[in-house]
């Protein structure tokens, strides 16, 4: 059983294409992602970078099972993803906490949905709150927390149900730089503790290199495809702020940026056209 799971990659996308009807109902349809194929090994931290509008979130939604691809398929630990992927946890870019639940109840929600009693779910949520540094904030409601604290709650909420693969869609993009680096380090610490697979979407190349084992580069949309793959063999454990100063980091950054820059420019030109 364990070996079978180890053999199958945590996530495998095979020729995934996603086409959406145009918003006004007529005219041409819009292809967000074109023939995307990649795998994420068990325990691997993979980042996907690409310019805005390159369909990064679309691929993540396919992996999560929130979106059915027009062509191709997604597999998670060898199982085709049909409907919500039960092995996946998802951290959204936008605010996803339930505003009518306290921080503690938000963290406990996933357990409650799995049939754990409310009292027990709360009891098990408490250590998770302190693990993300929010001890004593359990009875606050989301609007009473800062942006960084809400992201911590969301992180605990995602991790408490023990997903085998975590999908993260620019989770820290709304945070200021200091809070963001703190969160990145905390995420790496939590990840190092039990090495789940992570697919991390970002438009920030530095963030991608600092955190990942592997960086995938997406071309500018529409019809984005994967155009580059880079192995990041920097030592772990890493400190995301310090690692940015090392020569290996700079070399990698230069190499990937050379490819990404053209795509960013293309993407930028298209947003101006739209």
């Amino acid at each position, binding site marked *: 059983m364990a070996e079978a799971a180890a053999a199958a990659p945590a996530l495998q996308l095979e020729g995934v294409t996603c086409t959406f009807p145009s918003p006004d109902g007529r005219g041409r349809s819009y292809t967000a992602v074109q023939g995307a194929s990649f795998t994420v090994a068990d325990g691997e931290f993979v980042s996907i970078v690409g310019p805005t509008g390159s369909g990064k979130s679309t691929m993540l939604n396919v992996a*999560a099972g*929130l979106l059915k691809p027009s062509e191709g398929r997604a597999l998670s630990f060898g199982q085709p993803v049909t409907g*919500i992927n*039960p092995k*996946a*946890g*998802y951290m*959204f870019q*936008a*605010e*996803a*906490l*339930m*505003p*009518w*639940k*306290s921080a503690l109840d938000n963290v406990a*929600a*996933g357990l*409650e*949905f*799995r049939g754990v009693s409310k009292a027990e779910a709360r009891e098990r949520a408490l250590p998770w709150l302190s693990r993300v540094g929010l001890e004593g904030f359990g009875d606050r*409601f*989301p*609007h009473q927390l800062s942006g960084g604290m809400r992201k911590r709650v*969301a992180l605990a*909420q*995602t991790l408490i*149900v023990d997903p085998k693969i975590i999908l993260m869609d620019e989770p820290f993009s709304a945070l200021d730089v200091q809070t963001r680096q703190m969160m990145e380090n905390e995420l790496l610490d939590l990840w190092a503790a039990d090495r789940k697979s992570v697919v991390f979407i970002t438009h920030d190349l530095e963030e991608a290199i600092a955190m990942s084992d592997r960086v995938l580069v997406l071309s500018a949309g529409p019809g984005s495809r994967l155009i580059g793959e880079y192995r990041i063999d920097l030592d772990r454990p890493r400190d995301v702020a310090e690692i940015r100063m090392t020569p290996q980091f700079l070399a990698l950054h230069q190499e990937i940026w050379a490819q990404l820059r053209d795509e960013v420019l293309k993407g930028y030109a298209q947003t101006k056209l739209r």
Partner: protein
Amino acid sequence: MRSHAKRLPSRPVILLLQLGVLIAFFLIWHLLTDTKILSPFFFGTPGAVLARTWADFASGVIWYHLGITLLETALAFIIGTVAGIAFGFWFARAPLVSVVFDPYIKAVNALPRVVLAPIFALWLGLGIWSKVALGVTLVFFIVFFNVYQGVKEVSPVVLANARMLGASSRDLFRHVYLPSALSWVFSSLHTAVGFAMVGAVVGEYLGSAAGLGYRIHQAEGVFDTVGVFSGMLVLTIFVVLIDAAVTMIEKRLLHWRPQDTGGGQH
């Protein structure tokens, strides 16, 4: 935006000023009728109105009528709210139903509900149920539109997040749709309770044998202005009390919401 150039005085001072306005109103009324500038026959006198109100409470006759009106209000509110929630959910979750019925809902909502009162009196008699029915038609639409909106306005991200956390459709209803819809219902609670009372009193006024509206109508029939004003006074006092109770309930149930940003239609 609150300007901080003009500081408001402290709360006790404001309460004192508010009390002052009330006293001034009664004082002016008293002076104008006492000096016969306004005829006491048409305008009553505050002394007589207060004395009548006091006498009604002291003798206990008013309690029966007040009880009837409050019962009608409560029934109209409860039935209208439950039906509004049920239909609001149904319409929001079944797009075809909502599209087909949309023009009819709008048409019925645009109809002045008072014209239904004689019909209800015919159907349901002069007892409390014709008044309850009138109140229900008023309350239902407020709650219905708010629930519909509340279910429609659920953030798709919050919804997707709950689904990723393993929520079944029952969980989604209980943990996502219902709290969202209820927050809209509660924000329209003041209006709904007010309309329930309007339905009750207007219904009584148009034809009944008991209730505050009935008493006001009776007094009006014999040109008893003091009786009319006394009825209005009792009604006002109870509307204010009910509204205060609603505010308290609202604060308890919506404590998760940031202050000063009320959603919902009014």
